[in-house]
Every structure is written in C-alpha cells, then in structure tokens.
C-alpha cells in the first residue's frame, strides 16, 4: 500500500514539476543557441510580452479551476481596448476602470447565464463572446480607434517603467500575487478548488456552488479586460479584433502550466510558468525562423497534448 501511495505521490510530484523543468530546459536551450537571448533588454521584452498573456491566462485559471472554460476572453479584451481608446478623451483616467468594469460585468453575466440556465460553459461563453464582439464592432464601427497624444500620456502607467523595470512586468507581478492570495487564503479560492475536484461533494457540503462559479467567471472577465487595456495602452490603439489571436495561447498557458482542464488541480503560480513557456516557445520559433502562421499549428498540437497529459480521467467516465 505504502509503495503505491508513495509512487502516486511521486507521479503527482513529477507532473507538477515537469512544466518548471520544461521551462528551464527551454531557457537554457535557447540561451545557449542564441546568446543574444540572455541579454537584459531581450528578457525585459520577453517578460513584458508574457505579462499581457499572463493577465488573461490568470483569469482563465479561475474558471478552469472550477471545471469550466471561458471562450469569451478575447472578445472581452478587444471590447475593453475599444472602450479605453474611445473614452480616454472623455473620461480621462476613469476610462481604465470603466473598461475593466465592463469586462467584469460581461464575465458575471457569462457566469450567470451558465449556472442559471444550465448551459455548458463553452457554449454560454461562445454566445456572450459573440454578443460582446458585436458590441465592440458596433461601438467602433468596425475600425481601429487610435489613442491620441493626450491619451498616450495617460496610458504611461502601462507603457512606462519604474526604476528600470517595465511597468507591464510589475502589473503582471501584482496580478500574480493577488491571484495567489485569493486562491490560497480566501474561502472563495478554497471553494473553487473543491468545486473543481468534485462538484456534487462540494454542493453537499454546503458550498454555494453557483455563486462561486459566477465570481470565477467575473474574475476571468475582469482580468481579460485588464489584458485588453494593457494591450491598448501598449499599442496606443483599440480595435474590435485586437485580441483575436490570444484565446489559444491563453488556454495553452493555463493547461501547459499544469492546471487540469477537468478542474480542481492547478494554480495561478502554474499559469505563470505556463505563460512563460508559451512566450519562450513563440520567441524560440521566431529565432528558428518558423513562419508566424505555422506557430498556430504548434500551439494547437501542444494544447491537445498538454490536455491529454494533465486531464483527470477518473472524473469523466464518459468523455464527450
């Protein structure tokens, strides 16, 4: 018995540690192949790139932890970028919280639709994502909205740097710390893990399953909107299709980091590792001159593989 238990613990440990090992191998590999990679500016750029992806993926982590999925994140991020770009001249700094609140509202709505009407989360969020994409197109008349000079000054908190460290990295770190605290030290974080691990048991022990799920979707929407805001500030523009290529890398970051798509197992910390892996693989492929379009093939295949490795099959007797 003990040998089986210890072997299982060993397997679990290996499963948790393998993303970190993969990350180390990737960094060392690319670092030795291309010495320019280890320079401070390159690393700073890499981390800034990762920060935006991480913020979105961190939100997704909460939804995946409860066993759901949020396919609306890219539409929410795009909408947030449009809101910021259009309202900066009118509202000034208030445009940033307005955009994030809009995302939060959409997330809560997705969660509400999902639990109240008992619609599977991927369809519910596909639908709300469609509604949001329509709204973003409508608000922007389908065009890119440029942030003018005055707005750029107001967006300096994203594009600037503090003591030589790009602000984006600091924002990403803040989200990481906040996410970890929420997951480890709040009832909500514990309930989320419990729901993901076994919804009937969580429900039977008196956890308010529906409310917890709605909050998880709210966090996902809010952080997706924050990612959209960061993107808009960085590119000095908002567009209804700005974040359209981000859904797959974001889900990949969560899953590659070791959070199981079946829920219950995972954390924002793992998503940090996952986001770094995704960014480094992307940069590595650029170094190796892999066509930017072909990178989608790699990510698609990697996603399937990572899901297959991390999934907990005892939880889904019938795989639909």
């Amino acid at each position, binding site marked *: 018995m003990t040998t089986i238990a210890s072997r299982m613990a060993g397997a679990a440990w290996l499963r948790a540690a393998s993303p970190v090992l993969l990350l180390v191998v990737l960094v060392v590999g690319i670092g030795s192949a291309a010495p320019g990679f280890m320079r401070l500016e390159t690393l700073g750029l890499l981390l800034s790139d990762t920060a935006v992806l991480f913020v979105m993926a961190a939100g997704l982590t909460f939804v995946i932890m409860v*066993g*759901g*999925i949020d396919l609306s994140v890219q539409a929410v991020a795009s909408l947030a970028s449009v809101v910021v770009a259009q309202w900066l001249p009118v509202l000034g700094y208030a445009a940033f919280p307005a955009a994030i609140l809009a995302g939060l509202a959409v997330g809560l709505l997705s969660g509400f*639709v*999902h*639990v109240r*009407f*008992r*619609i*599977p*989360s*991927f*369809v*519910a969020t*596909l*639908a*709300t*994502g*469609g*509604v*949001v*994409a*329509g*709204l973003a*197109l*409508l608000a922007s008349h*389908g065009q890119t909205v440029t942030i003018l000079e005055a707005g750029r000054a107001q967006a300096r908190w994203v594009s600037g740097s503090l003591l030589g460290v790009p602000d984006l990295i600091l924002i990403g770190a803040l989200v990481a710390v906040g996410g970890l605290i929420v997951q480890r030290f709040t009832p909500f974080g514990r309930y989320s893990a419990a729901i993901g691990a076994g*919804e*009937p048991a969580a*429900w039977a022990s008196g956890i308010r399953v529906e409310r917890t799920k709605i909050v998880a979707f709210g966090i996902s929407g809010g952080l997706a909107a924050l990612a959209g805001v960061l993107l808009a500030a960085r590119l000095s523009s908002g567009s209804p299709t700005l974040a359209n290529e981000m859904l*797959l890398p974001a*889900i990949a970051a969560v899953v590659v980091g070791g959070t199981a*798509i079946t*829920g219950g197992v995972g954390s924002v910390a793992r998503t940090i590792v996952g986001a770094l892996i995704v960014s480094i693989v992307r940069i590595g492929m650029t170094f190796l001159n892999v*066509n930017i*379009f*072909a*990178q*989608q*093939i*790699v*990510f*698609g*295949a990697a*996603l*399937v593989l990572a*899901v*297959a490795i991390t*999934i907990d*099959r005892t939880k*889904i*007797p*019938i*795989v*639909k």
Partner: protein
Amino acid sequence: MTRPTAQVSAAGRGAAAPEGVWPWLRRRAADWAPAVVLLGICVALAVLNPAFMEPRNLVRVANSAAIPLILAIGATFIIAMGSIDLSVEGVMSLGTMIVAMLAANDANANDFGWWAPLLAVLAASALGAVNGVVHVGLRIPSFMATLGIWFVGRGIANTALGGSAVRVMDPSIRDLALHRMFGMPFAVWIAIACFLCALGVERLTRFGRYVFAIGGGEDIAELSGIAVRRVRVMAFTLAGFFYGIAAVLAAAQLGQSNAVIADGRLFMTVTAVVVGGTALTGGEGGVLNTLIGVLIVGVLANGMVLLGVSPYVHQAVQGLMIIGAVALSTRRSRLQFVK
C-alpha cells in the same frame, strides 16, 4: 425494424388522444417551436417590408443560407452525439486553401481542375477524422480536441497562403457556386443535395441511429454493443466531409481563399444547430431541425438588412439566440451538474 415501432407509437398516440388534445399539444410544442418561430419571423418581415417576399430576395436568402446549411449539417451529427466541434473554421480554411492552391490560380502554376475540390473535400474529411481519433484515442473532451485542431487547420492554411489572398481563376470551379439552374445558384442545389443525403444517413442507416443512441445515453449504447469509439470517429469524419464541401463552395462563391474566409462560421453554425432544436446534451433533434435553424438565422439576417439594422447588431442578436435556444431546450431535470 423502424416501421413497426413507428406504427406502435402512432397507435399509442391515437389511443392517448381522447384523454385530451392539450397535453399532447404541449408535449409536441417544443418540437414545433423552431418551425413556428421561423413562420412568425417570415410573416412579420413580409408585413414590415414587402420586398422580403420578392422572388429575387428569396433567392438571395437561399443563396446565403447554402454554405451555413452544409456546415451546420456536419455539426449536427456531432452535437447529436452530445459532443461539440469547434474546428469548423480550421477545417474550412484548410479546404478553401487547397481549392485555391490546386485549381488555376494567381499564386502558382497549378491547374488540377476537378482534382482541386475533390482533394479539398478529402483533406477536410481527413482532418475531421483526426479530430475523432484525437478525441477518442487520447480520451480528451471533444471541445478541447477540436479547439486544438481548429488552430492546426488554420495554421496550415495560413502558412500555405502566406497571409495573402489567392484568387481562383478556374471558371468551371467558380460555376460550382455561381452557375444558375432553374433560377437558383448551383450552391443552393448542392446544399439541398447535401441535406437529403444527410437526412438519409440520419434516418435510414445504422450509423445514423447509433449517433442518436450515443447522444441519448452513451453507457447504454456501449452496453448494447455499439462500437461507440468507431461511430464517434466516423461522425467526426462525416462532419469534416461536409465542412469540406462548404469550403469548396466558399472558395467558388468568393473566387478566392484568404486568412479570414472562415471567420465567424463556427458561431453561425452552432447558433443554427441549437436554434433548430438539436439539444447540446445530445440524442435529440437532427438535420431537419438544423435546416429550420439555418433558415431562422438566415431570414433574420436578411430581414435586418432589409430593415436597415447594422450588421454588427446581428452578431449580438445571434449570441442572444444561442442563449435563449439552449436555455429553452435544456431539460434541466436530466442534468444535475453542468460544467
């Protein structure tokens, strides 16, 4: 086999009739709701704008519904199994790319004529089969397997196209969609043919019955000796086949293949299937429902254009339609926990 059962159930229904027409009507109401909604929308549009009923406009509706119908027919078999196929856009991108690159085009010297659409449908079916094999073989949920394949397909297509649009110069391939027969574009006739084939597969073949048996209750289907895994792979292959035909028509209709040719198709497809009354939980609905669903979405889109509503609003309305249709069609007593 099926005929005697049908008679028995008809007899049963006849016997139950004296007990009251209302309970029977109410039971049947859910089945007829999509058709009633379609009729209601048509009547409302005809009243609001007489131009809706003009033959020219009706042909336009049919033409714009052709490709969505073929896509949605493919997805119906997947959703009837209780699974989902998110790879619609990826498979379709791959198909249109192959048509454009192998037929006479403005990017290379290829001119394989009819081999181009044939190989496109073949490749799309193959990618559909990959969906099924990955889903069944690695035992991962279909929405994850097909999400991955979505981007694999798109990646292959975009890599081959190199980010540019490639025009189809072969007039006979373009005629596949544009040539008119009895006043209707050929694309419409192909869609009707696809519909009849799919209806045949659904109603008359063992495979069609198995798909619904699996959707109704996979454990029971398995225990009754159905080779569930094989049926699943076959269904995904069949779906890929239909996406391939839709891809050929899209390439023929637009005369090109580009990076965004399939954008928004997944959304429209899922809306149409679900609005038609095929439940996401599987086991209910069918291609006939999907025909009605596609017409609802198509007529509504056409009506919004006629009434001068922004096309962007239409996407938002579609999203609300998905939520409404799924919420109405889900029998909540059946599922305790929804993920």
